[in-house]
């Protein structure tokens, strides 16, 4: 009986192969490709993460340059670096930039580059609010949210071999494609769960830095009060959950932390001195 079914299986397999066999498929090569993709996805080490990040940062700066205000740029770097020191990746080459755009947005690039737009900065009232937003972006880097999305997307955007080559060879055409794809990701956004996690942990990081933990909720409330049809908000609203949902989630899960660190400094005066002049 067993032999019979085995035979039947063989016959079926042979038929199936005859039916579905395609010309010129090299099974060994296919297996290699699958292995390469698996390897490419798993093996992005820290230097590679930083290298990809620099290339992506350069492109984002091609979309909007830095605000020509060195004092403002240094101020935002001090706040951001101080927060980064409080985290599990304190020694990444952290750098923070204010992009010259009236759009309201902020971006985290793998390897420790964070951008915030002039439009968002202008709507803030204190250093604690800035710390809340930078804390949120820092979490994206710590938890490698974008890097994971890049890894996942690289498999479908590039053929298997090309994905591996793009990571191996920093000057080839596949590399360009990988970086273009990675940059484009910022116009599509992350998973909602990544954004809500960045909110929760961002509040913690701001509190660790000694700031009033209500900075981030306060910014979210400002965004909520803006006209949702304002085109300055279009991309941010497209790529993030609505402010009301983010506030609900924080209120539900983070109330104890928020309240425990709500009397820490807001540093509104220092912020105004540095940003609004």
């Amino acid at each position, binding site marked *: 009986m067993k032999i019979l079914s085995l035979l039947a299986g063989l016959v079926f397999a042979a038929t199936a192969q005859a039916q579905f066999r395609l010309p010129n498929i090299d099974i060994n090569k296919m297996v290699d490709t699958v292995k390469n993709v698996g390897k490419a996805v798993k093996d992005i080490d820290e230097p590679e993460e930083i290298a990809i990040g620099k290339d992506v*940062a*350069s*492109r*984002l*700066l*091609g979309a*909007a*340059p*830095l605000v020509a205000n*060195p004092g403002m*740029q240094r101020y935002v*770097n*001090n706040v*951001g*670096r*101080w927060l980064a*020191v409080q985290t599990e990746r304190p*020694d990444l080459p952290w*750098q*923070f*930039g204010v992009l*010259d*755009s*009236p*759009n309201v947005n902020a971006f985290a690039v793998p390897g420790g*580059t964070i951008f915030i737009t002039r439009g968002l900065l202008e709507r803030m*009232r204190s250093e604690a609010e800035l710390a809340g937003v930078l804390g949120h972006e820092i979490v994206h880097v710590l938890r490698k949210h974008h890097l994971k999305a890049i890894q996942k997307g690289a498999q479908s955007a590039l053929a298997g071999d090309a994905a591996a080559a793009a990571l191996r060879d920093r000057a080839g055409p596949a590399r360009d494609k990988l970086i273009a794809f990675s*940059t*484009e990701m910022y*116009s*599509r956004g992350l998973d909602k769960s990544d954004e809500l996690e960045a909110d*929760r942990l961002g509040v913690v990081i701001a*509190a*660790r*830095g*000694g*700031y009033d933990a*209500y900075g981030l*909720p*306060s910014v979210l409330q400002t965004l*909520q009060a803006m*006209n949702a*049809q*304002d*085109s*300055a908000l*279009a*991309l941010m609203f*497209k790529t993030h959950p609505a402010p009301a949902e983010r*506030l609900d989630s924080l209120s539900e*899960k983070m109330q104890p*932390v928020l*309240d425990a*660190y*709500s009397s820490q*400094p807001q540093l*509104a*005066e*220092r912020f*105004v001195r540095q940003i609004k002049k």
Partner: protein
Amino acid sequence: MRILALLLLLPLLAAAEPATVIKPAELKQEPASDAATLATLPENTAVDALERKGGWTRVKAGAGEGWVRMLSLRLGGATTAKPGASGLTQAFNVARTGTSGTQATTGVRGLDAEQIANAQPNPAELAKLEKFAADRDAATSFASQGKLSPTSVAYPK
């Protein structure tokens, strides 16, 4: 000197902002949960938000004034579109692209979806970005100037 300091403070004393109570909220005499309760504001009460202290917002509600939990408020009036710059920008985008505001991603803002997707590298700006970075020591002394003390806070589970 004192006048200068006052001027710097001006933007903080923001004008009263319309807000709506989104869940029943106790109006407290002080910004603390153990402070005396002056009234309970029902959902959808319209108030004016005056200032924030920690998790509390000082509001003017009818004849009374007091503090409610910041997260029980939604800032902004109940109305939809506001006039002003955003409206103008939208009109401009419509003129430019011939599409409605929501589709207007080809404006002049530099960081719309399409512009990000088509962005080309800018190594000169990248070099500037690196120049402005703060090292650990600089950031630490900046924090102590602001009297910020690092605190140990665990991530939520």
